[in-house]
């Protein structure tokens, strides 16, 4: 299925974005693109299986979860900005992990 190719390409774009960016918000945008890739994958699965009801139910649920995660992430980003006055990813390399 052609949409499967799109899924993989979107996935690659999302991962590259997260790895290569210096800006915190772009990291979140990359994560968003990854979630879109996976949403498309679910819809494709439902399309092939002719089970759109299940796929749609799952996609709707995932969208709800995604909003909550992004909201909390935005809150954390705002907090980081208040400390450093910058959105640079390199600021949060303090912990050595």
């Amino acid at each position, binding site marked *: 299925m052609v949409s499967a190719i799109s899924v993989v390409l979107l996935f690659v774009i999302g991962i590259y974005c997260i790895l290569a960016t210096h800006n915190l918000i772009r990291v979140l945008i990359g994560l968003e693109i990854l979630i879109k890739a996976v949403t498309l994958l679910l819809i494709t699965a439902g399309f092939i299986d002719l089970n759109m009801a299940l796929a749609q139910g799952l996609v709707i649920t995932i969208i709800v979860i995604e909003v909550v995660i992004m909201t*909390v992430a935005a809150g954390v980003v705002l907090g980081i900005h208040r400390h450093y006055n910058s959105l640079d990813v390199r600021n949060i390399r303090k912990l050595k992990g």
Partner: protein
Amino acid sequence: MSALLILVPFFSVLILNLPLKGIRRLAFGTAIVLSLLQMASVFIPDSILWKAAQGAFGGIFNFELQGADILSKVVLFCIGMASFSALFVTRGILKDSEDKFNFINIILLAIAGMNGVALARDIFSLYIFLEITAVSSFILIAFNKDVLGLEGAFKYILLSGVATVLMIAGIALLILAAGSTNFALIHYALANHNKDLLISLAIGLFIVALFIKSGLMPFHGWVPDAYASAPAPASVILAGIITKVAGVYVLIRILVSVVGFSPQIRSILLFAGALSAILGAIAALTQSDFKRMLSYSSISQVGYIILGVGSGSILGVAGAALHIFNHAAFKSLLFVNSAAVESQLGSRDMDKMGGLAKQMPITGWTSVIGSLSCAGIPPLAGFWSKLIIVIALWLAGYKTYAVIAVLGSVLTLAYFLSLQRRVFFGKLNEEFKNIKEAGFNLTFPAVMLAALIVVLGILTPFILSKFILSFSSVLGG
């Protein structure tokens, strides 16, 4: 009626937030009662509470929850236990009453989420409640809004987000392969087509996602940052139970009830488990921050649990489940101790500490019990779970891994001895001459947990055979 375990915490949050005068003060008491009830409910016999609850609550709610098996019950008990300790630490550490209220509410929501994960029998419901737990932990880690906490929270959000994406992808592939999201139906469909590319891809995605969530090497990067920078009560509940429910339990559940153990899966688990057990222990040896050492210790112990699972036998899974419980007990205990030390001293730098056992006897001696249990010294509880895992590995033919497990135990003993010498015994630092023991809130849960570890250490050999046998139904189904 097992849906109550999710509905009651949720409705408590609803009720606590009503604009009634004075209801906020009930938050702590409600949460404590809830966690105690949860621990007790695990022992209620099957027929009354755990029967398949169809059409409960007069047809308004129709939840498909089958009864909980022993694996879920172990996890449910641990959730109650860790929450109980974390609630007391909350009361002891957070000073502002509004902060305390919010924190307790988030803990209640996290409990609802974890209970849902433990009870779910459908792979998508499992995912949703997993996300509830994850979001609650994001907020808990970032709660104080200090720089390090926010940094740890952001890294966790990112890695957890990637794990989420991989898991949804796995679910999508499983739907393609099996047509449904119910555990039993997927299991049935997978039993016939085992060597499929699609299914292997799905399983691979799941395993990577769950390794990230459990903090196994090589995906452990977020663990020390998140555990150490989180506020003390958050670390207790995060290390004590959240990572284990969110990562290890889900992995075990999927392997046991959905996918089954193939030799390739077992070798991946054994390798990752051994790697985490050894490297985590070595890394712990080099730390000077109290909480970071405990975080690396957690990575190492999770490696043990995965080694147990990787052996693929009933004995191995039972040992893994027992170690989940033991780790919840001693790790919560150690984090409560670190909270006590941090609140009295204002620092987590172990190089500056020493001889605290004289000033803080309760904290000191309970930490000894926790450390010895983690290192697997008899007759404490930790000894039994480690022994079972080693035996399971040996019997399943993975003799090298059994030796590695024992080696890991030696390393564990090493870093804990180092911890004890640096913090509680040895010369007293002049700076901390006048430190007193921490308050009731930070010592009571420590004493309770230590007592539980000692009692269970003595009782385990008597209930062991019954415990292990009940796992045959988990693996068979």
